[in-house]
């Protein structure tokens, strides 16, 4: 009996996933555009009360240090800007999107702890690199999203993958390739296409494990390093977590010294506490 899945199998299952709220799809697809009609979008988001509440709680967290409490999406846009608010809405929507608990052995909570921590760390890194912080945050949040596609659509095979990893104490990525034949990067890229992510975002998801590939882009390097830092800081609290090998090329591309890294570690921990309290509650 073979447990392998082909890339086409993955593509076929994407349509079976429940769709994101239409307004969130619209936001994701317009990430490269600046001429979006903000007031229309604000109104659309407001129709989804749960989404609005979660977004506003994020906006009012100390992460953004607002002096006033925002009570509407429109107000959040006024104070935080469109890009940042868009990120918050996306984060709030995506973290509640995939059904949990279908795959024995897969810890959904730990998955999101890692993703949120990576988003926080990528945002901090981006600030130090003078790179777009909102891109970094969203890419960090979604870098491993392919794993949720595999877990949701092939729970039994994924369970075997987790068992294989446990037995061989190897990287989960290696176990995926060994057992399934496809990995979470493939599935992530497929989903990114399906959801019409921008090229920048797609590249970051596609190359967060091999940022030294030509054309991978700087965002991939940021996410790659953020991913390793978060594993090393033990933020997901997984007993047998493993720090992935850090690409020398990506590390050099960021060119940060120890002083800065120590500061980044601390900022990441603080921001993580704050965001996870809102998104995982």
């Amino acid at each position, binding site marked *: 009996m073979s447990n392998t899945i082909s890339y086409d199998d993955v593509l076929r299952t994407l349509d079976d996933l429940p769709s994101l709220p239409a307004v969130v799809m619209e936001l994701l697809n317009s990430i490269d555009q600046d001429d979006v009609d903000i007031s229309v979008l604000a109104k659309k988001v407001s129709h989804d009360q749960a989404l609005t509440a979660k977004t506003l709680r994020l906006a009012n967290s100390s992460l953004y240090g607002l002096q006033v409490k925002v009570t509407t999406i429109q107000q959040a846009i006024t104070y935080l800007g469109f890009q940042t608010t868009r990120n918050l809405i996306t984060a709030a929507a995506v973290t509640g999107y995939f059904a949990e608990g279908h795959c024995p052995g897969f810890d959904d909570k730990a998955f999101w702890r890692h993703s949120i921590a990576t988003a926080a760390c990528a945002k901090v890194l981006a600030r130090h690199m003078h790179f777009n912080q909102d891109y970094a945050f969203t890419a960090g949040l979604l870098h491993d999203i392919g794993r949720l596609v595999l877990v949701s659509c092939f729970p039994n095979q994924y369970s075997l993958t987790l068992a294989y990893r446990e037995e061989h104490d190897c990287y989960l990525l290696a176990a995926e390739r060994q057992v399934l034949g496809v990995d979470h990067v493939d599935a992530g890229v497929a989903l990114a296409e399906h959801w019409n992510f921008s090229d920048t975002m797609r590249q970051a998801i596609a190359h967060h494990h091999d940022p030294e590939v030509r054309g991978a882009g700087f965002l991939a390097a940021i996410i790659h390093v953020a991913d390793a830092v978060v594993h090393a800081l033990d933020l997901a609290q997984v007993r047998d977590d493993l720090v992935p090998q850090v690409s020398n090329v990506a*590390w050099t591309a960021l060119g940060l010294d120890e002083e800065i890294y120590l500061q980044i570690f*601390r900022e990441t921990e603080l921001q993580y506490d704050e965001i996870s309290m809102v998104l995982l509650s």
Partner: protein
Amino acid sequence: MTGTYHQLALADVRPGMVLSDVLLDLQGQVLLPQGAVLTEAMLALMPRHGIDMLPVLAEQESPEQAAATRAHHEARIAHLFRKTDADAGNDWATSLLQRFILDFRLGRDHGKEHSHE
């Protein structure tokens, strides 16, 4: 930066405690210098700056406690980095990250303290 500090929730910080590190606000501006002795008035202002955690110097631990904490961190970090071979020259970025994390958890002078023992 000193070897033993705690991130304490604002509610748990008492006047008289000492900042173990420079305190930045969310924009990265300096609010208070390292070593500042915290007063009631300062603590009352923290929420306004969006700060709910503070790095404060740990109260003097007994040497046994300190050693136990250190051993715990060292063991955990070694476990997380168990696939990293510090002597393999081609994997220097990962080794460097490991060293920075050790410095972050144990304080930058932890290596020196060891050599005195």
